[in-house]
């Protein structure tokens, strides 16, 4: 348990440091496009992804860096992707928030709720092919009002598919509080209607998220069907990096950060359980900071696709001829 908790701490620190580095570089104008950051929600990606096995598939949201990092995607390839370089994970074509890494089992999407059917379909494929893998999809509170959310919960329940639905209820869909757009008190209530185990938990308690995720994943793996987990949290960066968040009462986020920082919560718990010293925690943070710094340092910027490459990558029969392979970093 101790080693596991230290791993949680390390993985959450890696995400936090990565997002802070992306924010710094984005604000300095070094990264093109947009950035949508995950800090504040680290416990969910880490708790769920570490409860999975090789071959399980994770489907993320547009706020998708955390899942990729925890699934082991190389930060340097992510950094290259954010610059739009051809040696990025998706040849610079998934930038900024559509990172996929098939070997690591991660696919993200930019439409609210859009990956819910993809995960459900992956679960159908696992089920029909007799594989023991599980599909997990993350989505925000806003996605719970999308039609495909309900359509997929219905089919997953009907066909007992090995899928875990993880709702990151961070309180706001775009810039509107969730309670302004639904009368449903707990978003996990939706799952109960479809007859699947459903629960609302503290999304900032990584150990609780992990335990809940593990139980759901093992239930799915054992043929027990789908689970809906609502994780209550907050997004620190707003809808996108640069969002002034004027729609949020000024003291709300300060209080939230003070009281519900998932990294601080786990750190204090580790100290009080005497499973770590402050030096241990500082050392983890220091290591993560260095890893992130190295990932972004001196990226080669000489790899670009041609217009022809772009067309070749659009269809499979053409892609076989594409010359641009992922070049070594």
């Amino acid at each position, binding site marked *: 348990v101790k080693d596991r908790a230290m791993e949680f701490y390390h993985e959450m620190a890696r995400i936090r440091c990565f997002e802070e580095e992306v924010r710094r570089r984005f604000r300095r104008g070094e990264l093109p496009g947009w950035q949508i950051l995950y800090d504040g929600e680290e416990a969910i990606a880490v708790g769920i992804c570490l409860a999975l096995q090789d071959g399980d*598939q994770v489907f993320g949201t547009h706020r998708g860096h955390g899942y990729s990092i925890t699934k082991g995607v190389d930060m340097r390839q992510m950094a290259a992707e954010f610059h739009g370089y051809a040696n*990025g*994970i*998706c*040849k*610079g*074509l*998934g930038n900024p928030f*559509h990172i*996929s*890494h*098939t070997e690591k089992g991660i*696919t993200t*999407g*930019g*439409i609210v709720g*859009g*990956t*819910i*059917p*993809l*995960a*459900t*379909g*992956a*679960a*159908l*494929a*696992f089920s*029909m*092919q007799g594989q023991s893998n599980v*599909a997990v999809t993350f989505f925000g509170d806003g996605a719970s009002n999308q*039609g*495909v959310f309900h*359509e*997929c919960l*219905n*089919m997953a329940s*009907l066909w007992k598919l090995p899928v875990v639905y993880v709702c990151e209820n961070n309180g706001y869909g775009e810039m509107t509080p969730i309670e302004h757009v639904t009368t449903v008190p707990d978003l996990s209530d939706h799952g109960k209607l479809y007859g699947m185990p459903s629960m609302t938990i503290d999304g900032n308690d990584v150990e609780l998220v992990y335990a809940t995720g593990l139980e759901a994943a093992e239930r799915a793996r054992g043929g027990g069907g789908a689970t809906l987990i609502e994780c209550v949290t907050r997004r620190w960066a707003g809808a996108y990096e640069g969002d002034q968040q004027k729609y949020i009462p000024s003291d709300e986020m300060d209080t939230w950060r003070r009281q519900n920082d998932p990294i601080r919560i786990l750190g204090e718990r580790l100290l009080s359980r005497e499973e770590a010293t402050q030096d241990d925690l500082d050392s983890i943070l220091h290591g993560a900071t260095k890893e992130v710094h190295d990932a972004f340092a001196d990226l080669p910027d000489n790899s670009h696709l041609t217009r022809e490459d*772009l067309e070749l*990558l*659009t*269809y*499979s*029969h053409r*892609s076989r001829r*594409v010359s641009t392979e*992922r070049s070594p970093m």
Partner: protein
Amino acid sequence: VKTLKYRQAIIEALREEMEQDESVCILGEDVAIGGVFLATRGLVDQFGRDRVRDTPICEAGFTGISVGAAMFGLRPVVEIQFFDFILLALDQIINHGAKMRFMSGGQHRVPLTIRAPSGARMEAGGVHSQTYEVLLSNIPGLHVVCPSTPADVKGLLKSAIRSDDPVIVIESYNLYRMEGDVPDGDHMVELGKANVVCEGSDVTIVGVGSIMPTIIDAVGMLASDGISCEVVDLRSLAPLDWDTLIASANKTGRLVVAQDGPPHLGLGAAVVGHLSGPLFGKLRSAPKIVAPPHCPVPGPGPSMQIYYPDAESIERTVRIALE
């Protein structure tokens, strides 16, 4: 060679591909009992309810699920009961299925077939009869085919199922009872190849899908007057066989496009626009487009009778092109 109905050719293509490849499965509304127009009839007996899977009525959901299943090992064939209902699934098709390969830098593949039969010329009203041949042909990452004969529907459907990309197969309910010769064995038709249905010297008539029998009727009427028409059935809209089309129009020097879809920025506009470069100065008369009026498809009755181009209107247009 054997004679099959269009509908039977669909079943045969599905059966052959499902026999050869266990990853091929069917999803859609009522597919287990054969679908409303019986294009999956009998398959459930051979392959079971897992592989011939009835879905709830939720096109976005089950199409999206099929995209996800295609990304992870299956080759799903989705039946959208009427082409009109594909509109409910466009986010999953366009924002996910069509660009998953590209946006993942070529890592993902989506071997998905979507059968979307059009109810054109079926007297089924404004939301069960629409023909948007070009709507999805404008989306990078999708293939779109529109077979008009039993042989073509079999061959193109089999190619679609074996493709590693999403393919939209726009069938036509008005053709389901059409009989035609289908070659024996593993009959395949390559995606992106047009068919010169009949050779001629005076004019090239271009069409696709549900309107093809009407074009053939018009050609018969013109032949009795000694007018020699070359008919190009595009069969595939994305990719489109421009080479065959350009060669034909270059030869005859006259071009008429006939379509069941709306005219504004439609198939005829695209064909004439594309050919205006390579054929600049080479046509003997202005290209013509025969199309419905730019309005929704009317319900059954006199208004629908004047909506779709008939053989007479195609014949009349060809005569104008020849003046």
